[in-house]
């Protein structure tokens, strides 16, 4: 009897031990942290902040801290806290000089000469100079490294460094978007590159306003003030902690409790929940992200331009913004957003159901037809597809909504090796040019060389003029000429309507009112250079 009792008490003891150690065990590891949690019974809506350590909650993890290999926006944001490039972007996605004091481009568009800022040091104390730039470009171009930025520098024929503060880059052919690409290429300390090699992504060293402190995968990335930063008076906060918080509701809760000082993205359907709350500010700006439906122009009935135009007339875009985007968005009035380089607004396709019916009749489909639309299985995308389904039903087009998980969908689209094999009819999707350049918003989507799997021209759109113009614009040296060519491209595509042009996303972020200077740029990257606690 005694032995039996012992077993039972041991069992309970074990449970209690687990509970107690669970409580204590993590205390120790937490002592280094400060100011991040809403402590104890404090008020749940703080309106002031005593320290200068800010917390930013974002919706997903960082993938890599290697700035030459980052392709997701959050990794790019993280890299930009610690790194800078010769050029950078301002909040309207214009290319502006950063580590280059000035630059000039030869008349033939082949030679780019950069004069570098002086007295800039990397965070490891080494000098930033022309040699460092050369080392970085060599790293990007090295095939062995297979870095994401390599294709942006494919046209660089040689890099020369006549003196320590001059870099001369010669291209093999003119490349209109080259400055944008330079702005996407941060400069890493050559010493750190040599010492860390492939591990540079775990030990980032740049010239940026913040220094790397720690990266706990999936939990937080902490960067601290670089005291030797070359721009006087910056940065104004001591540290920035990024926390991936995938659940929308949890991010909002963190903003409300003050555990996060800034959250991005702010889910559109929850803006109304926090708007007007004391101590919280919601910011919105137009993005470079466009939403559209590709129409497979090589498949019946979408091979008829009248059908495609009819679809554009049949969808009420204002209602789309209201219903699907909770009113936070703009109508897409071109092939690119107003925040993209060389944007040129178009007119037409105002909601007109009679016109749509008439065009369908002219095309030989007076009673409409049946088709299917593809999209990802995420809730807002589903809502978008259902909206389109409902709108097109009014003109007799019966749309079957097929939602798929991202990877599966990508496979469906890219497994077709030729346009004939393609099963895609309509695809509800979005696109954002990573460096805000017109080429990035055009070539991959509309050039006939970019049919899947080579690119993302999922409308299988082919227009010889557009093909010719894309090549011309790319090689054009004069920005005015490029602007006019891109104007023609946008006008032509707009009339050909290979897409149902839907909307431009708005970037919505939420912050505590005492925080200023944190900006989300139109490409969705977060900029903390001017962050300040007031």
């Amino acid at each position, binding site marked *: 009897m005694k032995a039996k009792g012992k077993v039972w008490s041991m069992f309970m003891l074990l449970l209690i031990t687990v509970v107690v150690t669970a409580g204590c065990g993590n205390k120790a590891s937490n002592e280094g942290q400060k100011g991040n949690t809403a402590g104890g019974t404090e008020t*749940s809506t703080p309106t002031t902040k005593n320290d200068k350590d800010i917390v930013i909650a974002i919706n997903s993890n960082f993938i890599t801290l290697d700035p030459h290999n980052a392709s997701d926006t959050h990794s790019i944001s993280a890299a930009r806290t610690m790194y800078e490039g010769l050029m950078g972007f301002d909040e309207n996605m214009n290319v502006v000089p950063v580590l280059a004091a000035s630059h000039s481009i030869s008349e033939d568009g082949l030679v780019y000469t950069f004069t570098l800022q002086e007295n800039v040091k990397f965070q490891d104390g080494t000098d930033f100079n022309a040699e460092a730039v050369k080392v970085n470009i060599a790293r990007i171009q090295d095939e062995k490294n297979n870095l994401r930025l390599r294709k942006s520098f494919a046209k660089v024929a040689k890099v020369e460094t006549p003196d320590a503060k001059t870099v001369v880059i010669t291209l093999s052919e003119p490349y209109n978007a080259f400055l944008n690409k330079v702005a996407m290429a941060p400069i890493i300390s050559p010493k750190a590159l040599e010492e860390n090699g492939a591990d540079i992504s775990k030990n980032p060293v740049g010239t940026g306003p913040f220094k790397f402190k720690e990266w706990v995968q999936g939990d937080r990335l902490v960067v601290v003030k670089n005291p030797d930063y070359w721009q006087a008076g910056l940065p104004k906060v001591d540290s920035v902690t990024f926390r991936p918080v995938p659940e929308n509701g949890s991010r909002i809760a963190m903003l409300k409790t003050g555990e996060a000082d800034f959250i991005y993205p702010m889910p559109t359907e929850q803006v109304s929940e926090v708007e007007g709350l004391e101590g919280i500010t919601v910011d919105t700006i137009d993005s470079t992200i466009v939403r559209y439906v590709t129409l497979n122009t090589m498949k019946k009935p979408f091979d008829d331009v009248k059908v495609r135009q009819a679809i554009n007339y049949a969808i009420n875009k204002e209602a789309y913004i209201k219903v699907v985007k909770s009113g936070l968005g703009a109508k897409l009035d071109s092939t690119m957003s107003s925040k993209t380089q060389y944007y040129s607004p178009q007119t037409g396709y105002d909601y007109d159901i009679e016109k749509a019916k008439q065009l369908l009749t002219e095309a030989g489909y007076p009673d409409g037809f049946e088709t299917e639309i593809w999209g990802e299985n995420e809730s807002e995308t589903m809502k978008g597809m259902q909206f389109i389904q409902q709108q097109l039903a009014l003109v007799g087009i019966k749309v079957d909504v097929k939602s798929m998980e991202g990877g599966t969908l990508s496979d469906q689209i890219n497994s077709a090796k030729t346009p004939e094999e393609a099963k895609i009819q309509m695809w509800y999707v979005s696109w954002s040019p990573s460096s805000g350049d017109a080429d990035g918003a055009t070539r991959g989507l509309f050039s006939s060389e970019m049919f899947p799997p080579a690119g993302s021209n999922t409308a299988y759109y082919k227009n010889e003029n557009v093909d010719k113009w894309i090549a011309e614009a790319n090689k054009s040296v004069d920005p005015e000429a490029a602007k006019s060519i891109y104007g023609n491209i946008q006008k032509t595509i707009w009339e050909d309507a290979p897409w149902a042009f839907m909307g431009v996303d708005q970037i919505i972020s939420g912050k505590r009112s005492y925080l200023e200077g944190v900006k989300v740029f139109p490409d969705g990257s977060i900029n903390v250079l001017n962050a300040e606690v007031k």
Partner: protein
Amino acid sequence: MGRYALQRLLGVIPLLFIVSVLVFLFIHLIPGDPARLIAGKDATLEEIRGIQEQLGLNLPLWKQYINYMGDLLSGNLGNSIRSGIPVTDMLESRVMPTLWLTFLSMAWALIIGLLIGVVSAVYRNRWPDHLGTLTAISGMSIPGFWLGLVLIQIFSVELGWFPTGGVDSWKSYILPSITLGMGIMSMLARYSRSSMLETLREDYIRTGRAKGLREYVVIGRHALRNSLIQVVTVAGLQFGFLLGGSVMVETVFSIPGLGRLLVDSILFRDYTVIQALLLLFATQFILINLLVDLLYGVLNPKIRFSQ
């Protein structure tokens, strides 16, 4: 007992081998090319091929399998194909939050669940039983996702007692473990109630009572212990599911655990990480089952002798 345990432990090895083959094949059967997902929407074909070559994804499947098994046997789980970070590093940083979360959830679910079950059985068809049943049924029917958000709204946003997420201190684990443990607690309450009721009808209980044993001895030492076998089975199975299945709770409370890592990895077809995680889950599942079997022996020596 020791020999039995060792035998069972050795039996795990072929099982793990079979699991590894199945995991490998299944993962490669999911549609979606990791190279394309890693390279992003605007990638060129050349870039995608480069990534495929770099990762060995262009090799025939059997060659990939041999490479993978070779690495695995030498204890190398490889690098994440998405981020290039060694898989062991990723698991290392993610395993503790998940373990704490699961243990805590299991601990309170067991204690409260058993308590409710025993009280319900003893006071059968009286108000404590009705209250217990109500609690258990509600606990089972509340969706965890919703419960998590409600708890955050009440205890973090309104009252400010606990953080909304992360793993900064012990406080961070309270709300998630309540969310995660609720379902199991309810299930255990139901199982222990019915199991206890059955035991209370046994002859030896009647004998015990007739001998004049105090009621708490009858219930605590005789009835409870014998009804625990069924409870241990259920708890063991649930524990296995919990470790891998805390995805939802980890998402709501932004806990950097294994569940979230698995979801992220599946979205990007990060083969190496998915493989490592599934193997890990399979291993712990097998080990927990082994532990449950051994516990039977402890609880009822008759089972031990009949092995």
